[in-house]
């Protein structure tokens, strides 16, 4: 494969991925409004299109045409840069996420993934950890106490939970013996005793790891019950209080893109990725894994929304206590036990 074709293929994949991702983001918002609405005995969006399906489009148009207010007291360079940073890092991580097996088009054998690197998971972690800059800088540059408090909370919270998040993944990494997401998924092919899928979540103590990951991921994405940085009741809107129009939309997109990334990573690491029953004609055979993968992401997102509709918000000290005194020791214990299991097995 020459470098030219490589670049062309990569470009196509990137554009495709971005399009799909942004659409998914938009419809995740719709899904959330709809599901939460039903949970709260409301209808959710219904006016625009059937079942309100065109609501995301309408929202987008509205965001675009709203007046872009820049408050006079902000530190302008960073005020403008912050949402860009947030959304850029949120979208970047999709680059290493595989959504399925190889696809052969003519003589080209193309992986369903923008790029396959053998430190894929590390890149996701790195990019996610950089995402905090967007929130923190937004909070600081807005020069408003609500924003600053939100930004401070966000950075402290994300640094704290990143530790547990990272540690919860190490068990899976030890089982797979690789950082490459594709290798990790491949390691989960097959079944235990013929009927239980060989997913990491069923493997030893990885259920706890999954739980830790779930909690840490909620905190990382600033979602309920850990949405302290944007706690409406106390901080107006937290770090994006001073933002409006498209800049606000960027934070919104970043948050939901992060949710999808997190869901994708959870599926890949714990839920067997794209593995599932494959049947039918070749085209179906090629697309079914993608469907299984998307289904998992959907389920994960549904849980996200479900939790949002159910649980109250933590207090900040409870959040920190939970992270440092419960999740972290649990993650370390899981790490030790998994290490022992791996050592005994080999």
């Amino acid at each position, binding site marked *: 494969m020459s470098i030219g074709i490589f670049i062309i293929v990569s470009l196509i994949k990137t554009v495709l991925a971005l399009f799909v991702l942004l659409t998914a983001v938009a419809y995740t918002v719709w899904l959330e409004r709809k599901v939460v609405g039903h949970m709260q005995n409301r209808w959710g969006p219904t006016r625009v299109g059937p079942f309100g399906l065109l609501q995301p489009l309408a929202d987008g148009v509205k965001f675009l045409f709203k007046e872009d207010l820049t408050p006079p007291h902000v530190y302008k360079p960073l005020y403008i840069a912050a949402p860009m940073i947030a959304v850029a890092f949120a979208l970047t991580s999709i680059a290493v996420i595989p959504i399925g097996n190889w696809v052969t088009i003519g003589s080209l054998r193309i992986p369903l993934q923008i790029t396959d*690197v053998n430190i894929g998971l590390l890149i996701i972690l*790195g990019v996610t*950890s950089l995402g905090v800059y967007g929130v*923190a800088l937004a909070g600081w540059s807005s020069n408003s106490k609500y924003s*600053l408090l939100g*930004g*401070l909370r966000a950075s402290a919270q994300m*640094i704290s939970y*990143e530790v547990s998040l990272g540690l919860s993944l190490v068990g899976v990494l030890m089982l797979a013996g690789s950082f490459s997401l594709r290798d990790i998924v491949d390691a989960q092919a097959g079944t235990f005793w013929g009927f239980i899928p060989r997913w990491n979540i069923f493997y030893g103590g990885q259920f706890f790891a999954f739980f830790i990951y779930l909690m840490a991921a909620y905190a990382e994405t600033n979602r309920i019950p850990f949405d302290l940085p944007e706690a409406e009741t106390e901080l107006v809107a937290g770090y994006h209080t001073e933002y409006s129009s498209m800049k606000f939309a960027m934070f919104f997109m970043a948050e939901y893109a992060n949710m999808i990334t997190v869901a994708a990573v959870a599926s890949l690491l714990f839920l067997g990725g794209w593995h599932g029953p494959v049947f039918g004609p070749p085209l179906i055979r090629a697309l079914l894994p993608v469907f299984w993968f998307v289904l998992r992401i959907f389920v994960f997102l549904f849980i996200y929304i479900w939790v949002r509709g159910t649980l109250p918000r933590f207090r900040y000290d409870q959040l920190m206590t939970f992270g440092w005194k419960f999740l972290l020791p649990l993650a370390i214990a899981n790490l030790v036990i998994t290490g022992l299991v791996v050592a005994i097995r080999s």
Partner: protein
Amino acid sequence: MVHLILFLVFGAVCVAGAVNLLAQRHPINSALSLVVVMGSLAVEYLLLGAEFVAAVQVIVYAGAVMVLFVFVIMLLNAGVEERTKGSRVALLFGVPGMLIGSVLIGWVLIERTGNPMVPAGALPGAPKVIGWLLFHDFLLPFEVTSILVLIAIMGAVVLASHPDTEQKEKEG
């Protein structure tokens, strides 16, 4: 060729970030410049094949250490730097000394290292190999640094904890 171009591009970004760090008077700008430097350094590492180092560079340096810096800047609400003239020595001796030292070291590096050409990814530092080395050949230093980190954690907690709050907690 691609290697050289990438090197030059990211090297330029690196140097620009470093110079910007010096030029900016607001610490948060300096911090962000430093993040840029670190990010482009990660790319330089990738070019040399040290992929794991690059990843850790991003996660630890850019993602954790610098976030800590930004956090502290925000916490202390550090303002624009004052241009006080507290030290003539630094300018009269330090800067010339630095210049002389750098020039000398640069000269030695160019003259004496043999200066081989390296291809992209010259020495692949795959996680597996690095891990093997860390847990075999460098086990003792690894453990020692872990103790160092533990001590650092405790030190940071002790230093940063406000004596008044401790008092209140005891009373309450």
